[in-house]
């Protein structure tokens, strides 16, 4: 059927074309990584160590949400831990006071994250760059004090404990595996959703705000709306990571969620993997966890000071070798392999158009 074929051809050309506009990388890489991650529990590793990867999956969600906010919209956040904590405390408080099942408390805790994101987003309307970064850094510190002060509600240092498990009926090892797969699924779904947003027309507006706010205003873009939208999306997924961590891993919500390390790990992961790429933070997080928690602690039993020193050196070497991120370097390699065919197709499309006119 010639007509059918023509439609197919146009659709394909259009996809190629939009792929270039919205900067969509090859999907094969993502699929490959997913397959590897899904196979890990069957690879014969010590299942007790599976928790590290579960934590990595959840941290990856936080890192990706950080990248959407900072790498795409340019609103620097040094206090992303606050969304992590918002999710955990949101679900914990609902459990403590209403005793609702987790299938209700986790989704509601996301609203808590969104609310927190909007509160933090308001200063972003008046401040930029380093000033905004300082304000966002101050938020977790202030909230920590807040949690200690209202001890009756938030439980002070120990926090709210004994949160229900997601899979209470399974045996210990099976639960580890189930937790791992659930976290993997959450990671995959969240990154796909964030990815879809970042490579949509809305995502393009985010980048325009990063590049030139005044220019975006001149284009009639309501910058306020898009900035808050970016904060809200970031907060939503950040708090999802937090509440999932509370139920899957530690079973409690405590002020340790607000640790500065929880704000810093997403940043390290994103810079390792490639800022503003969305897939970069995923690559970065797994490298971080494998290196820090597995290689330095299990394979080479080093003391903690040496660990940190070695880790910093390795990160520096990575950043010097791939200043734009490892993830981006890999994807650019893959794109180089694919390039010739796509250019040909676009040229064909142009030739066809020239014939018509």
């Amino acid at each position: 059927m010639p007509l059918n074929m023509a439609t197919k051809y146009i659709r394909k050309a259009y996809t190629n074309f939009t792929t270039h506009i919205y900067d969509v990388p090859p999907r094969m890489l993502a699929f490959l990584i997913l397959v590897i991650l899904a196979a890990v529990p069957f690879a014969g590793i010590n299942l007790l160590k599976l928790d590290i990867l579960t934590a990595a999956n959840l941290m990856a969600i936080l890192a990706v949400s950080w990248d959407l906010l900072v790498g795409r919209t340019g609103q620097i956040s040094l206090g992303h831990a606050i969304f992590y904590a918002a999710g955990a405390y949101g679900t914990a408080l609902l459990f403590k006071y209403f005793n609702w099942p987790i299938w209700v408390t986790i989704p509601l805790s996301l609203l808590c994250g969104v609310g927190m994101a909007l509160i933090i987003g308001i200063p972003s309307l008046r401040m930029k760059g380093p000033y905004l970064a300082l304000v966002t850094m101050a938020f977790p510190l202030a909230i920590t004090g807040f949690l200690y002060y209202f001890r009756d509600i938030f439980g002070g240092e120990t926090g709210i404990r004994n949160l229900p498990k997601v899979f209470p009926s399974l045996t210990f090892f099976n639960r580890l595996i189930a937790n791992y797969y659930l976290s993997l699924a959450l990671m995959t779904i969240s990154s796909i959703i964030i990815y879809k947003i970042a490579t949509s027309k809305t995502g393009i507006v985010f980048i325009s705000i990063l590049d030139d706010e005044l220019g975006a205003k001149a284009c009639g873009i309501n910058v306020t709306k898009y900035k808050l939208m970016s904060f809200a999306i970031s907060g939503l997924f950040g708090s999802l990571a937090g509440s999932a961590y509370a139920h899957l891993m530690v079973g409690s919500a405590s002020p340790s969620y607000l640790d500065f390390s929880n704000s810093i790990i997403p940043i390290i992961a994103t810079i390792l993997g490639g800022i503003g790429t969305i897939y970069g933070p995923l690559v970065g997080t797994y490298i971080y966890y494998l290196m820090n928690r597995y290689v330095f602690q299990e394979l080479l039993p080093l003391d903690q000071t040496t660990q940190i020193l070695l880790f910093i050196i390795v990160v520096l070497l990575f950043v010097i070798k791939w200043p734009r991120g490892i993830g981006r370097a890999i994807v650019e390699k893959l794109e180089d392999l694919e390039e010739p065919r796509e250019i040909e197709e676009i040229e064909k499309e142009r030739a066809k158009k020239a014939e018509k006119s």
Partner: protein
Amino acid sequence: MHLLEVEKLTKRFGGLIAVNNVSFQVDEGEIVGIIGPNGAGKTTLFNLITGYLKADSGKVKLRGEDITGLPPNKIANKGLVRTFQIVRPFRHLPTIANILVALQSYRGRRRIEWIKTPERKAMEMLEDVGLSEVMLEPAENLSYGDLKRLEMARAMALEPELVLLDEPFGGLNPIETEYMIKSIQRMHLDGHTMVIVEHKLQALMKLVKRVLVMHYGELIAEGTPEEIAQNKKVIEVYLGKAK
């Protein structure tokens, strides 16, 4: 009714009066030029009209509707669009995506015919200014002349009722200037109303029917290019007083 009415607009920066009691009107279909020496307040005037600066006193009306003090994006959505003296492209985005940003605004979205995809529309806009070759290049790789044209195309993507062009020929070589003059003329034939601030008087005089002259924040003369060229006050401002 005039398309744009500026009434007694005044802006002070500390002790300096950058724009002093400026009033003028622009009618539909006109091209108006604004000239004046450096520091005369032309760009400040643009910033006041488009909402980038808040005026101390005075009013701006678009089709009789008071738009004084509205934020820039709202003014752009009402159809009063500007370009910048120093280009402001979105450097990380492909050229075509620069246009897509404008099409993503409230006004831009309403202007797209339902049958067209925004990408197709953006492609057409780029073809109009001759940038379809570099459609997928990131804007940071474009030459200065191309960026100027991109800025123009981005403004036109909102299908404005009135365009304020801030030094459209600044930094362009003679060939690019000629090209720019042609595209402005074409836009004028399409029925667009324009106000142009410019230093290159030769290029400007080819385009406009009416010129306003600013000096130290005040309007000192108004008239056709020929009248302005004969005006003693204007010659004094540009060349100094004859002894």
